[in-house]
């Protein structure tokens, strides 16, 4: 869905630069440092440039896919958008958000990352919700919907520690919590590849619902069928820069041509 009328932008990222220093010692930690000093070795630092002057504007309600090879800077860009990292230079603003200083962003990245193995499913739902910025009362009102979405075979599982869960159940519960936090912007990182087919369909249905509701979706994937299905626009990142930006089919075509792959 491409909106023709000009709307406020959900995300405005301007001139983002990001470098990482990778220090190589024999050992990590204090021992490695001291060892390196004693042997007269200067710690070697490799500088990796992850983003090199990347600017990106995403309108509210758009669904944009980030594509590119491993190490092209997709994950770094996603981390900057999720505000878990700061750019070296450049700025990201969220003008369309109800509270631009604190946009509600739901990262569906390795969902369940915040689950504690010794706590029950129910306890983890409440805690994960509060990490994503919801109050306990808000979460308690959503418990039924979350459990219905995760759709475990037996309700007793919600009272069991999540360490007893299968990896599929883990992901299902994590996804269920994240999609029920009323996000303005949803960041999806390959999460759709997990879970069984019926759960994947449920996730696609939820994403379609988000799109109808006018929420903004940023989607990172190597699965071009998934990209075509979810995104209307694609951004191709290569060598830390934006190589192409436009309608998903034509950007995928360009990307595949550069890789020497058939469409």
């Amino acid at each position, binding site marked *: 869905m491409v909106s023709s009328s000009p709307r406020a932008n959900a995300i405005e990222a301007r001139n983002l630069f990001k470098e990482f220093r990778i220090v190589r010692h024999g050992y*990590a*930690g*204090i*021992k490695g440092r001291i060892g390196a000093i004693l042997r007269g070795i200067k710690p070697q630092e490799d500088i990796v440039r992850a983003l090199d002057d990347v600017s990106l504007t995403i309108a509210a309600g758009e669904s944009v896919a980030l594509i590119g090879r491993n190490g092209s800077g997709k994950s770094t860009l996603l981390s900057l958008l999720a505000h878990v990292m700061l750019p070296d230079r450049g700025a990201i603003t969220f003008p369309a958000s109800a509270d631009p200083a604190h946009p509600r962003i739901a990262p569906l990245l390795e969902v369940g*990352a915040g689950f*504690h193995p010794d706590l029950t499913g129910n*306890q983890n739902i409440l805690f994960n919700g*509060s*990490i994503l910025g919801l109050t306990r009362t808000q979460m308690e009102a959503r418990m039924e919907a979350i459990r219905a979405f995760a759709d475990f075979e037996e309700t007793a599982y919600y009272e069991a520690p999540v360490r007893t869960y299968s990896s599929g159940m883990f992901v299902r519960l994590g996804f269920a919590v994240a999609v029920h936090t009323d996000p303005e912007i949803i960041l999806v990182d390959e999460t759709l590849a997990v879970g069984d087919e019926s759960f994947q369909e449920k996730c696609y249905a939820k994403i379609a619902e988000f799109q109808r509701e006018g929420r903004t979706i940023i989607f990172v994937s190597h699965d071009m069928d998934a990209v075509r299905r979810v995104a209307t626009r694609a951004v191709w990142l290569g060598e830390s820069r934006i190589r192409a930006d436009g309608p998903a089919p034509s950007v995928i075509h360009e990307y595949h041509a550069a890789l020497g792959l058939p469409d």
Partner: protein
Amino acid sequence: MGSAGTFLAEVREAWRYRELLNNLVDRELQVRYKNSILGVIWSLANPLVRALILWLVFDKILPLKVSNYSAYVLASFFPWTYFLTGILDAGESVSRQMALVKKVYFPRELLPLATTIANLRHFLLSLGVLALYLIGLYAFAALDNDPRTPSLPPATIFLLPVLVLMQTLLIGGIALYISALNVFFEDVKFLMAVLLDLLFYAVPIIYFLEQVHYTTALSPGVRGIVHHLFLLNPITVILVSYRSFLLPAQRAPLGPGSDAEIWVNLGVPWPYFWLAFAVCIFVFLSGYAFFNRRKWRFVERQ
């Protein structure tokens, strides 16, 4: 924006997330007892057993010429346990949560602050056990008309909240320092474990500060310096103050095998107390700044 402005902005941002802080504390306590049915009883069992053992050892088995010695040991031992667990738990408070830190934004300082507050809650429970013990002790003294024990604790008992506050600031400050360092150097938590093990003997828990001041093992000049060094350690000041705020001074032997008697549990001179208070505030504020200068690099650590 100046650094003071940044500091205030960061405090405001952390305050916005106070409900999450509360949930992190609850989670810490839920996890500690793995949702066991006994729950709170377990957190009481530890100090209760500790009190019983120290009472048996110091008041019944070892013939020490200090009346109610176990009460004096406990009054410093429970606060010491708060230090120990508060600092050891904080070490991994960030590094254990890296999966979360890499994915979701929230003020990272909440992690070490949550372990500190969880340990504070435990400490308050153990103070409850200590209070029962002391009520029994003072009640018996009143019934017996024991000339060595007054029937009421010192008036400084009303300063107890100040003491708990300054100790919490100190632990929180150290927690902020070491949780940030431990992300980059995983040796830090092992180093802390060794240091704390040694520190146990360098602070007056199983002895009195006055026994250091007047010990015959050191020449008068040296022991004066050592006594001052003890007083400059805020942990010593805190532990000694718990004891002197809760329990009376009394005459006790200078040391094992010595017949000389000295006054013990006189507390610390007030200037040292307020100096320690200032140090605790400084450690907390500088720890907060130290942590915040590094918190954005946690996820970049390769």
